[in-house]
């Protein structure tokens, strides 16, 4: 369930129609520095709290986003 939510969150933050769970910094051209900022802020909005520095630095793929949403 959180993978679906993560895919929707990342796609929305990057303005894409969809993304795969394995997509990330290395594979998505739209996932640049501003895109990364949008993704982190979207995760924090979804969780209703700020991420820790360790969580922020762990985000590199859609699967990482799913893990953050699960915590």
């Amino acid at each position, binding site marked *: 369930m959180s993978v679906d939510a993560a895919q929707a969150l990342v796609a929305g933050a990057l303005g894409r129609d969809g993304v795969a769970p394995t997509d990330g*910094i290395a594979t998505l051209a739209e996932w*640049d*520095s*501003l895109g*990364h*900022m949008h993704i*982190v*802020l979207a995760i924090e909005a979804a969780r209703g709290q*700020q991420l820790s*520095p*360790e969580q*922020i*630095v762990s985000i*590199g793929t859609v699967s990482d986003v799913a893990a953050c949403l699960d915590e």
Partner: protein
Amino acid sequence: MSWINKPRDLHFDQALQTDRFELRPLSLWQAWRLGANNWLDDPELASAITAAPLRRSQWRLFRLMAKPNGRTRFTYGIFPHGSDHAIGVESVQLRNYRTAHLAVLIHDRDWWGKGVVVEVRGRVISHLFESDRVGRIQGQVEGRNFASIFNYRKLGFDHVGTFHQCIWSTAEGAPADHLLFEMMEDNWHKRGAA
């Protein structure tokens, strides 16, 4: 001033080219002029350098800025090809043991979000590792500077530690963390081969 008796290091004190930019080594005077003309009027940029947005004097900037000396500290102005207008700087400080510390600031906001740091820093890192003076590169960034964190991740740096609540963030109005990143020479070459 232990550096003053050392000869200038011509390997680092030379211009570098990327697809979109020329990185020109700046003198202390040029670096200070660039900062005084472009950073002090922008509270957000100035606070990154002076750690105090309301104290943006040229003297404070001079005291706290990275000061190139041609031996152990180098500051490269980032110039788009065909332009004499610098959009930012990349600073390198050589430290013991075989360590280079990086810092970057893009003051031209029109270039934010356009991959400047990844392109420039990638070239600088390759150049640093061509020297036997550098085997390890490190950087430090505030914990909520998402764009900088992205840049380190994109370049393949490892997050090797966190200083928790080590600095007062004027932007957040609260203590902030600093994240430490590291790139070893072997990892950079493996990454290039991958």
